[in-house]
Structure formats: C-alpha cells, structure tokens
C-alpha cells in the first residue's frame, strides 16, 4: 500500500469511540437515566419504599392534588426561593462592587466573602445553630430587639424559621455569585468609564448607564443558577428544622424524603419528585425565554 491512510476505517473509530464513552455512559444509564425512568414509573404504583406494589393509575396524583401538605410544600419552596434568589443575587453584586475597587486589601476581603462557600453545609449549620442558641447564642441580643426583649428560639418559631434558613443560605453561598460578578465587572472595558469620567458623569449615572447594562448577561446567568439551585433546597432545611416547626419549612424535597424514607411510601414520594421535575422544567423554559434578551454568552 502506497497511499497514506488519511482517515481510519470507520469501524475502527467506532470501536475506539465506544471504548471511550462506554464507562461514563454505563454509569449514566444505571445511576441516572434508569432511576429517572423509575421515578416516572413508580409514581403510577402504590409502591412501598422497597418492593413493587400495584399499578394504581393516576391515584397518586389525585391524592397529591388534594393533599394540603403537598401544596404547603410547594408554597414553602417558592417562599424560600423568594427569600433567597433575588437577595442572594444583589448581595453578590454589592459585594463584587466592593471588592473590585480594592487593591492590596483585596485578597483578605475576597477570602472573607468567599470562604463560607467552601464549607460543608453541616459545618455552616453547626456554627449558626450555636450563634442562634436560645440561651447562649452570641446573636440573641440582636434577636431580642425583634422579640420584645425576650430570647427567640428561631428554629422553633414558624415565622422566623424560613427567613433565617434563607439568611444562612445567603451567607453561605453568596461568594459564588460574587465571583461571577467580579469576572463580569473585570470584563467591562475601562474605556467606557474613562469616557464617562470625561463627560462628568456621577458615579450613580456611571453605574446605571454603564455597569448595570453591561453586567446584565452575568446577572441573568446568576439568577438562572440561583433559581434552579434554590428550588432544590433540602440540606439546610433538613439539618436546621427537619421541615418544622408545624411544617412551616417543609419544602418539596423534604416532603419527598419524608414520604419515601420516613413513611415508606415510595410511589407517593416519586409522584412528588415528578412534580418537582415538572416545576423545574417549566421554570427553566420560562426563564430561558424571559432572560434570553440579554443572556447571550
């Protein structure tokens, strides 16, 4: 043979490709696609946690729609989203604006804002449980101001529990948003600011006419991440309140966990999971349509 084999025979490429994709794809099918299909299937079955159960048609969903606890969990999830997504985004932006103008103080300040994001959730909750402790918590003097001078058991108070979970979540995760905003701010060309300074623009004008519009793609990105992430709230709620007090922090995944692992109703838990999938899907599509205007990346 004198001709150079420019391209491999296709079957050889196919064989190599199969070897390359097989390990991941096998795990993906077994530990992701198959369980996804099972969630759909189980939601039509009256299954306990372990075992098959019988086909019950749409009975699980009929129960779901008449289950006040389910609607409670949906409301609580959206309440948490409301309390966390927008504040987390704007606090992140504010911190980024503070950090980027620093010079030699920048590394320590950046670390102070970002370090909480590196901690495991249970370390975060241990620290805050101690700071909010009813008898000895260092934050009780501040909480007393809101409670007529009496000590406040935050996680035993239906009004306070969810806002406090949201506040802790912001403290913990805002560093991630800040980092994205810092990247966005550094991407804005200095020339815009120089031109604005020459024209005598005030700093407020500069922010609203230059920084904010040019930062919109990043803001849209952060909002997208936040919304999807916070709909999946579970860890903090489970550790801090377990869904209580009086179900005031019972979020959807907490209800999935309770139905599946505490009440052993696998079919019903799957039906709740499936409705969470649908909510996330609908919101993703809506959000994509709404934010597409500026979110070209």
């Amino acid at each position, binding site marked *: 043979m004198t001709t*150079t084999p*420019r*391209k491999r025979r296709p079957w050889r*490429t196919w064989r*190599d*490709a199969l070897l*390359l*994709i097989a*390990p*991941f*794809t096998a795990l*993906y099918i077994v*530990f*992701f*696609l*198959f*369980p996804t299909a*099972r*969630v759909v299937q*189980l939601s039509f079955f009256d299954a306990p946690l372990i075992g098959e159960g019988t086909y019950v048609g749409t009975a699980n969903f009929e129960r779901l729609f008449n289950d006040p606890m389910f609607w409670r969990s949906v409301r609580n999830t959206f309440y948490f989203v409301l309390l966390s997504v927008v504040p987390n985004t704007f606090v992140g932006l504010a*911190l980024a604006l*503070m950090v980027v103008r620093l010079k030699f*103080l920048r590394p*320590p300040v950046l670390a*102070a804002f*970002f*370090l*909480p994001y*590196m*901690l*495991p*959730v*249970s*370390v975060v909750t*241990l*620290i805050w*449980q101690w700071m909010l*402790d009813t008898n*000895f918590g*260092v934050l009780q003097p501040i909480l007393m101001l809101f409670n007529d001078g009496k000590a406040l058991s935050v996680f035993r108070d239906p009004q306070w529990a969810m806002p406090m979970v949201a506040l802790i979540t912001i*403290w913990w995760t805002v560093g*991630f948003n800040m*980092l*994205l905003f810092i990247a966005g701010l*550094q991407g804005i060309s*200095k020339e815009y600011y120089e031109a604005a300074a020459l024209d005598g623009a005030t700093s407020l004008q500069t922010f609203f006419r230059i920084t904010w519009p040019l930062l919109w793609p990043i803001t849209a*990105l952060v909002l997208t991440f936040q919304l999807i992430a916070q709909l999946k709230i579970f*860890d903090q709620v489970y*550790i801090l309140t377990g869904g209580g007090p009086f179900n005031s922090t019972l979020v959807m*995944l907490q209800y999935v*966990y309770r139905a*599946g*692992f505490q009440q052993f109703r*696998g079919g019903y838990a799957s039906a709740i*999971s499936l409705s*969470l*999938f649908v909510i*996330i899907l609908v919101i*993703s599509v809506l959000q994509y349509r709404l934010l597409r205007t500026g979110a070209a*990346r």
Partner: protein
Amino acid sequence: MSTSAKPPSAVLAKPPTSAFARMLRPRRPNVPGLIGTLFTLFIAAIWAFPIYWAVVTSLKTEAQVLSKPTTFLLRTFDINSYIQVLTQSQILRWYFNSVFTAFLVTFFVVLLCMLCGYAISQLSFPGKNILYWALLAGFMIPFQGLIVPLFVMLADFGWVNSYQGIVLPQIIAPITIIIYKQFFDAMPPELRDSAVIDGAGEFRILFNIFLPINWGITTALAIVTFIGAWNNFFWPFIITTQEQMMTIPVGITQVSDAWGVQYARTMAIAVLSGLPVAAAYLVFQKKVTEGIMVTAGLKG
C-alpha cells in the same frame, strides 16, 4: 486580563509605579473612597465573624463558653475540646471516609468525563448526537429527586453503607464532559490528524497530546470536583446509616445530637471539618476560581 492596547499618551502620563511607591507619594485624601473602604472592611468583618466565632469558641473551655459576659478575644487557649473530639468521636474514621471517597470520585469524574468528552469532540460515531442530547437533558433533572429509586436499587445491590454506594452515583457529572468537549473543540484539527497519520491510537492521542495541553483545566476541574465531593452532604446522607461509613459532613450532624450543649466540642468538630477545604481554597485560590468559572460556563 486587560491587555487592550492603551494609547501612548496614557502610558507617558503615568509611569509605572509600584503599589508601595504610590502609597508613599503624598496626595489629597480621597474621603469618599476611604469611607467606602472602611464600609467594605466592616461588611467583611461581619461576613468573617461566624467563622471567627467558631474558632474562638472551640478554643475556650466549656465553662468559659457559657460564662457571661461573653468574651470575644482569647487570652488563653484551651485545646481540650480538640483532644476530646479526636479521641471520643469517630471523626478520624470520617476523615478517612471523606478523603477516600472524594479522591475516588475526583479520579473517576475527571478520567471518565475526559474520555467521553474527547470522543464527543473529536470522533464521529453513530449515536453521538443522542448521547450529547441525553447529557444536556440531564441538567433539567435534579439528582435529589431520584433518591427513592436510586436508594432502592443500591439496596438491591447490597450497597447501602458501602464505598461503591457512596462513590458511583457521584461520578455522574455531565457538566465536566461538556467542559472537556469545549476545550477539546478549541484544539486545532491538525493535532489529531497528524497523530492519526503517524499511526497513534485514540487513547495515545488523548493522553500524550490532548491531556498535556489541557493540564491546567484538568487540575482546576479536579480541585473543584474534590471540594464538591468532600462537601457533598445529600447523597452520603441517604446511602449511609452506620456511623463508621459516614463522611465528615454527615457524621458531624450525629455528634451534635449526641452531645447536646457541649458547644466548645461542637465548634472544635466544625473547625476540624471545615479546615481541609478552607486550606485547599487558600492554597489553590486561583485554580478554585478558574474551576468555578468554567463550571458556570465562563472561561476563567
């Protein structure tokens, strides 16, 4: 990085000076700037306070912790709580479990996703588009919603309270494949073509040519994956029920229930659990930032 060409006049007007020289040079005090900096430091102090408070509490005696008025500065250090935590809890075992499982997760995520990303980026084979879309569709489905069938399946395998049970589901990280695909797509096509002419197989091309060129992104992804696996609470919490199989984030929620109001000890265990990732961040700061940026869809 701002490497945009500056007009020559700007370069002439401002000779490059070190930060130190600029500090020494007398200048008009910038009052609003100073107020802004002080405000920033104030907020940063508030943000750092919970971590500071955890460290301070852990270094007090249990009696000091409960005594009033509260002391915010330490004059004496007491490491008794650390000794008690290390000897009376299973924290060393949880450390081992966390290091072991996080290492395995990292190794397999990086390796398997790199192989898969290479195939999707460089080779054409039947079913490629289906695979790619199946991976993208996966982003829509929250892993947390799969716990019921996933737990049941692993229980059938007898993998509850096992390392393979903790590790294997965490290897599903399609985002890493997408990132590798993007980085491999950016390689010039001649790179693979010429190696193919020389008779190199796909694995050799990947490990001898593509991997060395993309070593930077590989280390960034590895560090971020390791931190994520170390911090993962949800899945190890579902799949472990015995204390000796728990990872750090799951295990430490048990001791606080068992100890009640032993806050110096509780904070000692919190500090010990947060320390490895906090240290990893401070050491690999740039890599962590880069890894987070690419995972978010921005090039670092």
